[in-house]
């Protein structure tokens, strides 16, 4: 199982901050992004989100395996 975290306007669109998906093999963050939207519907702006696996930034090609946490991080606005 892969845990997916959503924030700010992405969470608002998905109406949840956390989504889990079952996987059978390792896959890329890009594939996770596709599976996520198959599950919760299209998320506007997700293509601009920063990507993190287990709290570290990764590229779209980053690999995700069972048990990992993937976060989609919309453009940040702290400070």
């Amino acid at each position, binding site marked *: 199982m892969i845990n997916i975290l959503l924030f700010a306007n992405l969470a608002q669109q998905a109406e949840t901050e956390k989504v889990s998906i079952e996987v059978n093999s390792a896959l890329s963050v890009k594939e996770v992004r596709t599976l996520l939207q198959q599950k919760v519907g299209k998320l506007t702006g997700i*293509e601009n989100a920063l990507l993190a696996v287990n709290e570290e930034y990764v590229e779209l090609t980053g690999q995700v395996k069972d048990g990992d946490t993937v*976060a989609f991080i919309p453009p940040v606005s702290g400070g």
Partner: protein
Amino acid sequence: MKKYKITTEPINNQDVIDSVVHQNAGAISVFIGTVREMTGQKQTKFLHYEAYVPMAEKQLERIGMEIQEKWPSAITAISHRIGTLQISDIAVAIAVSTPHRQDAFEASRYAIERIKEIVPIWKKEHYTDGEEWIGNQQGTKTYPAGHPEEVVK
């Protein structure tokens, strides 16, 4: 005090400052971000900040490490508040101490710019005429998926 902190409590500036005081520091530059009422014609009633807390604290710590690489004598502390903030409340306090003042100014400015780039915190403005998550909607910041090298180690 924890030097890199995301907190739901009001920020005490002096606590942040105290954690960078050092006998060989001659300068401390402190940056405090407060909630502003007017932005152009828009009036803010209050703000809401949310964060990906454990990752945000790691990223604050990373900013501290980046500063220490660039300014080896610098000591940095950063607290960012989340939750609901009223006008003039402190959202973020950054303190950097260095032997000489120029480095302190540069490093504290570096810290706030980096916070706005890499720390997963989001601000929702509650205006008198509506609300919006700041970031995507403004279109002032985008991170094309092919260009994340600033954040990927």
